[in-house]
């Protein structure tokens, strides 16, 4: 593999790991709220989080540009304040991958939390535990398998993200070119050898993730 391909592979893993971590931090609390609380705007939140699952990735990417681009709703004030913009950096790739992976994680974890017997949480409340503590010591440990499955799906989705990443982060070799983008470029420019090498590498990596996840899942039950 060429140095470009190796750097693409390294960047892809880096982006997928960061996006998965962000998913855990954002997605698990959202899934908990959706599963256990009734609040104003709940169905709106559910809708917004789920949209990336059904929208074309380029549309999601477009929204991200509108939001975070240099002239975006959040991006413009940020640029004015710091002279820095997230667009066309590897952070942009992380954000795109995070948003695209979020529905998979949230939906899986939501279902897992809903399957936890509510009487267990009620029992914890009557035994003096706050809602947060109950979530951390009862609900989430019992939803562990679902959370694990959700994280694996999120990682796999982040690893393969293409459309939204291209829109927000561009395709800058060595900076924002992840493996899927790199494969696309290689095929476009007729470097089929490089394309095959990366296709094999990505397939192998995905298989590895699934095998590890299955092992963990089997141990958890």
């Amino acid at each position, binding site marked *: 593999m060429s140095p470009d391909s190796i750097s693409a592979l390294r960047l892809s893993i880096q982006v997928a790991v960061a996006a998965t971590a962000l998913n855990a931090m954002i997605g698990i609390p959202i899934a908990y709220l959706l599963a256990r609380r009734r609040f104003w705007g709940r169905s709106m939140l559910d809708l917004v989080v789920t949209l990336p699952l059904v929208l074309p990735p380029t549309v999601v990417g477009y929204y991200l540009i509108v939001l975070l681009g240099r002239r975006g709703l959040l991006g413009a004030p940020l640029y004015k304040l710091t002279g820095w913009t997230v667009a066309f950096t590897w952070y942009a790739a992380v954000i795109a991958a995070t948003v695209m992976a979020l529905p998979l994680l949230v939906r899986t974890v939501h279902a897992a939390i809903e399957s936890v017997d509510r009487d267990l949480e*009620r029992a914890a*409340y*009557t035994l003096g*535990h706050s809602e947060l503590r109950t979530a951390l010591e009862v609900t989430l440990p019992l939803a562990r398998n679902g959370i694990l499955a959700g994280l694996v799906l999120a990682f796999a989705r982040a690893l393969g993200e293409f459309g939204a990443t291209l829109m927000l982060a561009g395709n800058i070799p060595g900076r924002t070119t992840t493996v899927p983008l790199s494969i696309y470029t290689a095929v476009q420019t007729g470097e089929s050898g490089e394309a095959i090498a990366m296709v094999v590498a990505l397939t192998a990596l995905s298989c590895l993730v699934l095998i590890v996840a299955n092992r963990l899942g089997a141990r958890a039950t």
Partner: protein
Amino acid sequence: MTSRLEVAVRKSLPGFTLDVEWSAGDGVATLFGPSGSGKTLTLQCLAGLVRPDAGRIVVGGRVLFDAAAGVDLPPQRRRVGYVFQGYALFPHLTVRGNIGFGLRDRSRAERRRRVDEVLGRLGLEAFAERSPRELSGGQRQRVALGRALATDPALLLLDEPLSALDLPLRQALRDEMRSILTGWGIAAVLVTHDLTEAYRLGDRIVVYEEGRVIQAAPRAELLWQPSSRSVARIMGIRNLVQGVTLKATADRIQFRWRGQVLEAVNSPTHSYLPAADSPLAFFIRPEYVRLIRKDRGHVDAAHHMNLMAGTVVREVDQGASWTLFLRLDEPGAPAQGDYDLELEVPRLVYEILEIDRDRHWQFSLHRGAIHVLPSA
């Protein structure tokens, strides 16, 4: 008399309204009534898991909820223990972890000491490191009790604590539960739809029907109030009648009813010992009344306990079986209107014995089929 527990709760849900008011002293109060009558909802209001629309809940002088005064303590601060239907033991923790779960604010040593004490009192030492799924139904029940009792709650709530068990175990554990509750000396509210359970476990019985309390009284008084009978009928308990005690021993109760001397089994571990000549309520399941066939030779009194004779005054075709209403060959008014006992015979038996033609029968009651309801 000041009450340990004062409950006034109103809560409207779609299609159901709970509107109850009752009080109880120390000891066990049982909430008895059919499913869907609001018993569990009352427990949830007491525990702070459901917020009533209006009312006031006071436990031992502490106001837990008062809609008018804007008081609503969260479940964490109510000091109310809850034993859930199906127990709700934490499956990812050991027995020790479950019992110590409510003691997280204590020091490690103090928690360990308390958990050991609870394990010891409930005879669970050998199971401390087991997972709940490795326990029998009875052991799970004790762990659930221990988990709730470990924190020294001011009040213990038990939601159908025996319904997860099969019948023979249920009867044994009912007595065990009674001795744990009295041994611990804790005020408790227990929900059940089983009349025998309500009587065996409760010092005070609160009868629920469709979100309302139709009566609340100490156990000794309740059974003689007419609405208990209508409730018993609603619950499908038939042949609930009263006799007069002759003699009660640890394993037998002898009593007089409609001129007969009958004998019932007493509870082997928690005998009910009413004084001679005191009133005694009991019920007999219609399917346990045994007709004696006339073609099987002479009747052996040793073989056929509680032998009686009577005439079929009415009958109802139930399809697979017949319900017969019998009047005993005794002078005086029958126990239940125009009849004394209701019994059920399979259709085949009815046809073989030609009951439609032959109306006078001898029958017997096995002493285990007579359910005495303690009233003192």
